[in-house]
């Protein structure tokens, strides 16, 4: 009996262990409480994150009224759309359309899960070229963009009545002066991750991946230890040494500082807009000031993608090109939540001064690489930037190490 007791105890422990290990590797969709609503003939199924659900539902109802095809919406968390789609679609349980970010396409198209979308030249001309560029993979358009976004400078108008200076050097000086005069607790806020810092890297002549002859990002051409990237890292190092950038200030901390009027300038994207507008802070949005070269922030593009294994493939494509890509519905989508429209004919109708500020930043930007190799970049360069901010290692060394590790990683996984 004792032996049996010990056996069952062991069993319980092993089971618990397996239970803790297994979720990390869990692959089957039933392991999560999520129950996908799959594609079904004659019904358009759309998976969407929690934003803009109401407007898509409304558009879906109009579509049903006009063409007799019901549109069914399933909502889930933003990252969940991608992960669930990646698992459910191959099992035939994916929807017809997903709404998400353009940097998913590398993974999803390589996995064989996205169908190309064809736009007439006339329709193409109505979209911001950077948004189409973002949704183009291996020469094919695999998403219909509706919104772009890029980081820009939020500035506190009470502290900076003259706005953001034209050049980076002046901006940094102003940031220092505001702190020295005791007007602000911090002059300039910049998240310690590569996404927010890409503008700085390109402004100093660096970047992450070079482009090939057709303009696509080339994973074999890593630029992170180029002269320009190292100069950008050295600039970060200088900013820390001169007290402009401080360790430990992530997105939440910077947001709180800016909302309480203690931070003069904050470099981040339009997602913070609604939150800041809940305060009385008078603020403006300006593109990132000129550096040695024009800083090109990463442009993220939001759009609609069609499941390659959909049961309504042509219908889904027609829904996007004929119904969504119209002035009327694009205005509705953008008005539901402020953003920069990728569909340019409507810009004056939907953009206020803040959105125009972000639009100016998008105009300078380049799409965030959608190639799957990008997943090797975030961690290493994020660590490199954190190490600089924490003053643990020299800027040139962290960049060389990171570039080497990324090249290794890319070579190994191909």
């Amino acid at each position, binding site marked *: 009996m004792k032996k049996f007791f010990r056996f069952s105890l062991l*069993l319980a422990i092993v089971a618990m262990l397996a239970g803790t290990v297994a979720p990390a590797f869990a692959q089957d969709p039933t392991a999560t409480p999520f129950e996908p609503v799959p594609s079904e*003939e*004659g019904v358009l199924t759309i998976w969407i994150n929690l934003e803009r659900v109401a407007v898509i539902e409304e558009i879906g109802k109009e579509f049903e009224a006009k063409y007799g095809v019901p549109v069914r919406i399933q909502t889930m968390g933003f990252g969940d759309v991608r992960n669930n789609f990646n698992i459910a679609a191959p099992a035939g349980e994916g929807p017809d359309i997903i709404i998400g970010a353009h940097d998913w396409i590398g993974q999803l198209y390589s996995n064989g899960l996205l169908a190309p979308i064809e736009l007439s030249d006339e329709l193409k001309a109505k979209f911001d070229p950077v948004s189409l560029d973002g949704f183009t993979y291996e020469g094919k358009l695999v998403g219909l963009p509706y919104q772009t976004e890029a980081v820009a400078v939020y500035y506190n108008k009470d502290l900076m009545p003259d706005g953001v200076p034209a050049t980076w050097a002046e901006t940094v000086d102003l940031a220092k002066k505001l702190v020295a005069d005791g007007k602000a607790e911090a002059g300039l806020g910049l998240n310690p991750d590569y996404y927010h810092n890409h503008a700085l890297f390109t402004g100093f002549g660096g970047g992450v991946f070079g482009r090939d002859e057709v303009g696509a990002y080339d994973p074999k051409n890593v630029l992170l230890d180029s002269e320009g990237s190292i100069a950008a890292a050295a600039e970060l190092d200088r900013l820390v040494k001169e007290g402009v950038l401080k*360790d430990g200030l992530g997105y939440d*901390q910077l947001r709180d500082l800016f909302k309480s009027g203690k931070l003069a300038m904050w470099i981040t994207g339009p997602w913070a807009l609604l939150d800041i507008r809940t305060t009385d802070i008078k603020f403006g949005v300006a593109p990132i000031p000129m550096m040695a070269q024009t800083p090109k922030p990463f442009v993220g593009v939001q759009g609609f993608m069609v499941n390659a294994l959909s049961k309504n493939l042509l219908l889904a494509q027609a829904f996007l090109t004929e119904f969504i890509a119209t002035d009327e519905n694009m205005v509705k989508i953008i008005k539901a939540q402020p953003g920069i429209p990728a569909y340019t004919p409507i810009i004056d109708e939907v953009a206020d001064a803040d959105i125009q500020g972000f639009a100016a930043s998008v105009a300078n930007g380049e799409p965030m690489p959608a190639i799957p190799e990008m997943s090797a970049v975030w961690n290493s360069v*994020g660590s490199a930037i954190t190490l600089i901010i924490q003053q643990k290692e020299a800027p040139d060394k962290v960049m060389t190490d*990171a570039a080497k590790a990324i090249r290794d990683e890319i070579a190994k996984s191909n």
Partner: protein
Amino acid sequence: MKLSPLSLPALLTRVVLLGIFDVVAIWMAVTFTQRISPLLGILIAVFAIIVNLVFLRDDLFAWRWIIPAMAGMVLLVIYPIGYSLIVAFSNYGDDHILTKEQSVAQITQNRADSFYEPQDSVTYFTYVYLRSGVTQATQEDFRFYLVDPNGKSFVSWVGLENPLTEDDPQFQYGERDANGVPASINEWKLVPPQGFGQTLQGLNLSAPPYQIRLTQLQLLQRRFVSKQLAPRFAYSAENDTITDIQTGEEYRNEKGYFVFGDGDTQKRLSPGFAALIGMDKIVRVITDERIRDPFFRVFIWTIVFATGTVFTTFALGLIFALVLNAKFLPGKVIFRTLLIIPYAVPFWLSVTSWRGLLSVNGPLNDLMVQLLGRPVNPFADPTSAKVMVLLVNLYLGFPYMMLLSLGALQSIPSDMYEASMIDGANDRQQFQFITLPLLLLAIGPLLIASFAFNFNNFVLIELLNNGGPPIASDTVAGHTDILLSYTYRLAFGGGRGADYGFAAAIGIFIFLIVGTITFFNFRFTRQLEEVSKNV
């Protein structure tokens, strides 16, 4: 064992319960077979049959209580381990998500480059007609009215060798609209095209030497656009190769891709598919120095973290338990309730709260600024980050240990203390020779369980500080990463996205490590039990 014959109600109850069980089991077996894994479905079916046998035959009575345990072990332990093992020998992950059949179908049928448009290809506006009275339509139930760019019209359907011209005498048309499109062809009626996605998907109207395929749906005009296309690839099941018809290149099946050529000039067809590829992933875990080098430091910290947590939570839990167990303490219930709160609050909520509390402009740091004149950032420094992780886990873990100890303390017979007092033992001696050994005997196995749990306490690390601060920019490991969070970073931050095969390979190594440690821990508790026999 001789059993008394069952009374009728007992027999009825048994049959009914078994019937309910069978319904559930059959439902599970069928759904699992169809939707998840046939193997799992078969396992469940076999288990259900055995249960029926055991409960219906009295001579198998002894097995009744063992069978559920066995089934639980197979389903919850052996099957996942086996599954992980298989995945470890595969390339399953991004780029290799589809099955081979799906991948072949994508390459030869569904991708934009599966077909090419020949120079002399003709594009048609295509109207769809469905035979009257059909409810469950198949492709054969349709007729298609094709209008070419010159306005010339044809009628075609699946299986017809060549499209027939409009004026073929067999057709009688209904009323025509402004564009000349008829409302019916014989008994086939014009229908809006949008409702027949899957049915018409892959429609292939013969038009030698090409195929007419639907390429676009035009909702407003209620028609499709179709084109004469030629297939680009041909799959040969016999050779398991895909041939590019235009160039004659033959792509062979190699490790989850169809490839042509070798070395740097090798070309492969996308998308790849999941396949068993042998030892590649396991070899990579052992040989890749970028993984091996941080492995040991991560391993050491994992051990420190897990043992440290068990030790600190047990010590603090025990102290509180001893205090709460003291007879003189008033208001015991209130204290006990308050002390259990950290255990009752959802785990992730506590951890994210601590993350906020400890951040640079969080409330604890306001205090630090008052006291030290400068903020302290426990997320930046390796040592303070490690201390922080241990302290937060102590906060989360001590109530559990306290509850266990309270229970175990009650079960120590008070006559032992009385006897020891007569022998002249003081409080310290009582604790050292009576309380602690008997307590450890009771909760020793649970301490091991706690160790194993914390060894893999991924959620805490990931939620609290993502394993930071970074060690260096050329490794994904951070100073507080434990093996499991390190694995997660390796497997999901790789050069091509998520690599489940690789994750499973590392998972097997972790399983071996934890298994070994647990084995030795049990040896240790057994020794403890032997000691206790002499107490």
